[in-house]
Every structure is written in C-alpha cells, then in structure tokens.
C-alpha cells in the first residue's frame, strides 16, 4: 500500500530524517517506535503531506506521489490523528467531524447530527454530538478526532500516541475498531511508546533511531527487550528505580479527609506516608485528576481536612499550596504545566521567583541563573541555551523542566499527573529516578497514571478510584494488573 524509500528531510541544518524506509501493507497494523526526536513525527508529517520530503520516493497504491498538502493527502485516503488535536473547541462534535467537507452551501443540522451520531456509534463509542468539543473529556476528544478521520474514505490511517489520553476501556474499544478496519483492508500506522500495546495490536514494527530506520520486524518474532535495545541500547529492567530499600526511616503522615470528588455529595479520605510514592489508578473519568486538583486548591476552598502529622493545613488556592511546599505537575503540559514561549530560565524560577529576588522584588539575574543552572544539572536536562523557549525542548526535557520548577521550592508534597505523557523511553527512566530520589528524601508523592506498568513500577501503594470513590488500596507486594483493573471497573 505504502512504500516510502530513502526519505530525507532537513530543517535548516538539522537532519530530521536521514533516509527512512517504511513499507506498510494493506490490512496491516504497523507499529512505529522510536525515542522522541527519532523522526517519527516528521516522517508522519511527510507521509500525510504536512511536510514535503527533500529527497526519496513514496509510492502509495502503486502510484508515485509527491505531496505537500494535507488536504490532497486526505483525498488520496491518508488520514492522520495527531497527538495535538486539530479540533475546534467552540464547535460541536458534528461540526468538527464535517468541518472542511463541502456539502453544498447550506447545512442541514439534523441530518449531520444524525450522521455524526451514527458514525461514532459505528466505531463503538457513545458521545452527545451536539456538545461542544471543549465540554468533552480529553479521551472523548480523541474519539471525535478518530471519527473525523473515518468520516472520509480512509486507506491509510496514522495514529500518533492515541492511547496516551485514553483509559483502559477506551483503548480496548479503539483496538477493536482498528482490528475491524484492518479486516476491511485499511492500513494502520500506530505510533506508541507503550510496548504492550504494540505487541497486542501490531503485525509488524518499524524502529526508528536518529532519523533512520533501524529495523522492521514481525511483531511475533521479537520481544520487549529487543525492541528497547534497538531504540536506545538499554535494558528494560533499568527502567524503574530500585524499590528494595525499605521505607523504615520515615514516620510522617498526611491525613486527608472528606476531599470533594467528581461525584457530587461524595467524598474521599486517605493517608499519605512520608517517603512513599502513592499511586492513583482508575479509568479515565474516575476522578483521579480531580483528587490532585482539589488537594492543590484549584477548586477553591474545599471542605476537606488535611492534617500533616496531626497539624491541620488549609489550602484554598494553588498559591496557598505552593507556600506550604506543595507542587503539582499537571497532565497537560502544554496547557497547564509549562509556559512554552518563555525561556527555560523563566519557567524554572516561576514558582519561587522571590528566592532570586531582593526584598524590593528586583530579580538578581546572577543568583537566578545559579539556581536554574543547578537544577538543570541536577535533573540532567538537555538544552541549548538557558534563554531558549521551553518549546525548543523535547517532551521529556520539557517535563524535567516542569519538575525542576518545583524543586526550586522547599518541596514537601509533589502531586504528579501522568509523569511521562509524551516522554520518550530514555527520559522516562530518568524522570522515574528523579521521582524516586525525591521520595527517598522524604517528599510525599501522589502520582496519577494511566500506564499500568508505570503505576506498578513506581508506586509503593496504589489507590484505585471509580466514579470518584475509593475502591481499594493495594500494597506493593500485592500488585497485580488484574486486581487493579477489576477494582477500576468495579468487577469485584
């Protein structure tokens, strides 16, 4: 179906693609794997017409194609679903799905709503199509994005990290859908950092590294360790930090009572232990993120009681929280976590500018630089210039910068939502190490993760939520994927 040969693409002096080969058959689900910066996104942009290749050939359906226009690519049957959604927040689901598809000048709302609803239910989901995109959860937005791609005849569907925002259930449904498309002869390119997904779903996997194809292997002939070493030359076992040390040295406790949850009238109580990484698991929409947000004072003064070693603590706003030494790494790094257009320096000193300012509020540039450089070194952030915008870094390094921002405080509690969203394998291991180190230093850590392996690899204890209610607490020795999943679905 698609043969891309020796594709090269330069941006100025940077060689993003140094000669990539990718062959995808009709009726195949083809995994694409590689660290951030390996060239996956660029390759996908070339295939979907967002960028023109500088050299190389592409044959699609027996026809040599040269395109530099996503619209034409789409007409040819090539659709891509990006990590960053291309939906218009203020328009309805229906309007988004049919956006850009001319159907005469007049719009028959009812007819389109019906078609959109049918389309979404045909792919196995249920969404109110007259709702605006901004009213939907991120997971549902992703589903609309997929429905939009399928509203036109698709021969090659490209998905860039689709599962990153989906809960376990949704991912299952998505896989069912992709398998169905496969039987209809559609070729699928599936980009993911989650190796389990690739093993479950794909027929073949192509690994990219530094802008070149390393290898294309049949999925059944390979294993995780081989894939990871192809990507980075690193063993999987090194991914998660050593948990064998006991937590004996710490004795502090944070008691949280009557925390408001997603479900009106319900509340939540639990304990956090000093030096412990407490994981929160559950499906998308189970209220995991809301727990962190409430604790961080984002919902104003919640009627909850927080006690640190018996001493009550009142948090009514993020400002209060930060003053008390709490930090939060949000799920959506682009929207909430970092200031993409501002420099690394400004991002890191943001939460505690007063530390590098005198009492009149004037910033001591030298002192600020010292603090920032120190943190950058401590977290091993790879960057060009401290005054470069955050935007210029890879996802993993951006995440480290967001973490570094909190290390600039006298950090006591760290709330982390999806610590490695959009982060490549190499940087993931480093971020895990950083979090573990913080825990070892006595920082209370509360971590939400949709990645089961990550949740079990990192946590000392896991709380499972469903509909904002606590389903259970599992200690590390009892960790088991099935147990957690059963609690999350409520199938006990």
């Amino acid at each position, binding site marked *: 179906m698609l043969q891309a040969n020796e594709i090269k693409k330069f941006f100025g002096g940077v060689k993003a693609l140094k000669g990539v080969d990718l062959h995808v058959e009709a009726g195949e689900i083809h995994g694409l794997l590689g660290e951030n910066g390996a060239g996956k996104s660029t390759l996908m942009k070339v295939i979907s017409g967002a960028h023109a290749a500088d050299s190389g050939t592409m044959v699609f359906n027996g026809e040599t194609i040269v395109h530099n226009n996503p619209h034409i690519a789409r007409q040819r049957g090539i659709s891509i679903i990006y990590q960053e959604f291309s939906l218009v927040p203020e328009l309805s689901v229906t309007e988004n799905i049919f956006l850009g598809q001319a159907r005469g000048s007049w719009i028959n709302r009812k007819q389109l709503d019906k078609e959109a609803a049918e389309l979404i239910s045909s792919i196995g989901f249920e969404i109110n199509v007259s709702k605006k995109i901004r009213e939907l959860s991120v997971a549902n937005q992703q589903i609309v994005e997929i429905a939009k791609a399928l509203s036109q005849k698709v021969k090659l569907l490209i998905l860039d990290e689709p599962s990153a925002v989906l809960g376990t259930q949704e991912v299952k449904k998505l896989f069912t859908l992709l398998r169905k498309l496969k039987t209809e002869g559609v070729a699928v390119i599936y980009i993911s950092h989650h190796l389990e997904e690739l093993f479950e779903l794909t027929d073949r996997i192509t690994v990219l590294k530094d802008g070149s194809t390393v290898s294309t292997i049949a999925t059944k002939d390979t294993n995780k360790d081989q894939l990871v070493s192809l990507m980075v030359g690193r063993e999987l076992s090194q991914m998660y930090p050593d948990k064998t040390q006991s937590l004996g040295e710490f004795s502090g406790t944070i008691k949280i009572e009557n925390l408001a949850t997603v479900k009106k009238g319900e509340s939540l109580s639990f304990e956090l232990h000093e030096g412990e990484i407490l994981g929160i698991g559950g499906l998308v929409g189970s209220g995991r993120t809301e727990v962190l947000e409430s604790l961080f004072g984002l919902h104003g003064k919640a009627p909850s009681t927080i006690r640190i070693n018996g001493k009550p603590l009142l948090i009514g706003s993020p400002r209060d929280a930060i003053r008390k030494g709490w930090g939060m790494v949000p799920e959506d790094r682009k929207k909430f976590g970092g*200031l993409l257009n*501002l420099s690394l320096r400004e991002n890191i000193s*943001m939460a505690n*500018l007063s530390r590098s300012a005198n009492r009149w*509020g004037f910033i001591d540039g030298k002192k600020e630089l010292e603090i920032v450089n120190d943190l950058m070194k401590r977290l091993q952030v790879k960057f060009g210039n401290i005054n470069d915008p955050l935007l210029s870094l890879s996802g993993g390094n951006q995440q480290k910068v967001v973490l570094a921002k909190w290390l600039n405080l006298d950090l006591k509690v760290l709330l982390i939502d999806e610590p490695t969203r959009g982060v490549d394998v190499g940087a993931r291991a480093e971020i895990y190490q950083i979090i573990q180190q913080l825990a070892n230093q006595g920082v209370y850590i509360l971590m939400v993760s949709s990645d089961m392996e990550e949740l079990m690899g990192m946590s000392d204890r896991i709380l499972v939520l469903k509909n904002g209610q606590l389903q259970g607490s599992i200690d590390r020795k009892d960790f088991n994927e099935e147990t957690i999943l059963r609690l999350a679905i409520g199938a006990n």
Partner: protein
Amino acid sequence: MREKLLKYNTLIIFLLLLVISSIVSPSFLTGENISNLLRQNAPIGLVSLGMLLVILTAGIDLSVGSVVAFAGVAFALLSYEVYFSAGFLLVLLSGIIIGALSGYLVAYQRIASFIATLALMTIVRGAGFLLSKGAPITVGNHSSAILYLGTGTILGIPVSAILLFAIFAIVYVILRYHVFGRHVIAVGSNEEAVRLSGISVERTKFMVYVLAGFLASLAGLLTVGRTGVGTPNIGVGLELDAIAAVVIGGASLAGGKGSVLNTLLGVLILGMIGNIMNLLDITIYMQQLIKGVIIILAVIFQKK
C-alpha cells in the same frame, strides 16, 4: 543574519524612516523640529507604554483616550480650587481609580477587556463632558507650572521628553528585572500555567490596568500642559494610535510578547510619519490614508 534582522526590524524601520525624512525635508533634522516631535509625542508615548503592559497580559485598554481628556479637564477645573501639587496628584489619582475600575472588571469580574474598557471609555468621556459642560476650560492659577511641564525645556531638551524617557526607563527595568514584570509577561503567555505556579493572575492583571490608567492621566497632564487648556473632546482615537504603536513595536495582541524599547520606537515611527507629512504640507486626509498603509507595511515587515 536573518534572525538579527528580525530582532531589530522595528529599529530598522525607524532608522529607514529617519533617513528618508532627513532627505525629503531639510527642516526635519533640526533641533527645533526634533524637540517639537518629542514634545508632541510624549503623551501618546506614555499611553502606549500603559497599553503595552495591558497587551502583554493579552488584554486591551480602550479607555485611555478618554482618560487623557478627563485628566486635562479635571486639572483645569482643579486649578481654580487647590494648589498645583494637590491638583496634579488628584488627577493622577483619578487615573489610578479609573484604571482600578477597568482592572477590577477584567481581573475579578472576568469581563472581556475589550468590553469592560469600551464601557469605561464611554463613561469617562461622558464624565469629562459633564464636568466641563462640553466646553474647553482654560487653566486658572497654575498655568505657568503646567505649561513648564508641557512646553518647558531643560538644557534645550523638552521637559515632557525627559519625563517620557525616564518613565520608559523605569518600565523597562521593571519588566526586565522585577518580579512583577516577569509575572506580566508570564500571565500573557499562559494564564493557566501561571495560576498553577502560585502566581495571582488576578492581581497581576488588575495592576496593569491601574498602571495604564495612571500613565494615561499623566499623558493628560502633559497634554493640558502644551496648551494650557483642558479640552473634553481631545484624545478621541488615541487608544487606537497607542495600539498601533505597540503593534508596530512587534508586540503580539495574544499576549506574552512585546518590548518597551520597540514600543518607544513604534511611537516615534508613527510620530515621524505625521511630522514629515506636515513638513511636506500633505493634507490631513491624505495623511490618514498614508499612515494606515504604513502601519500595515510595518506589521507585515514584523512578521517576515
């Protein structure tokens, strides 16, 4: 090279215009004309600086032109009642209060800045007319002091120009080296992320409108100081000139991007365009047309 050019493009436009002006009119590059140019543009310079602060937070302040007029009228009326210094300070206070009102509506009531300041633009303009009963008011007792501010010179440099440069320098330092300045730029860059960093978005926004109001009332004092008359219908459309100057200076209306130095250059570019066309005896109608075209060209050049 290209990046350097981009970085200094406002400066390039400014220098280009300076050279062209000196060539087409021999009377342009004279001390008298330059003094005049600076004096004329000091009020709009102050207003533009306030506008820059607001625009950095992704807002807009349409009320500043009305504040300029109101300040002039208020000062003229007060000059019959109180000491110069009291009148001067009361007028500045009125600017601060008007700015605080805008700031409250935008920051705490979450009304779109365009709407909130549009309403205040009308209200303050109306208040100016009410106070003056629609007629220009001549300054009474302190005319020499206020005229010194508007027309006087120190070592040949207009007092108003010195004030302008001094305030630009202060704001430059605040934006670059003060925590508040950092907050202003951050709020315009990503409000939500800033909130999560424990910075009060509301207070930062509130403060920029207060400053814009303060600077507009100071501009009003300079304006009344040039003629000795408080005129209620002066400064109509001034807010738009200020926005133009800020944008020519490379600021983004989406917030988070803009520079004090380039805003000053933006003001001078607009001022020079008007000045040179006056020297060349181009009719005021034609001037408007040409000015509009130059704004478009300057902004296109910015984007390149």
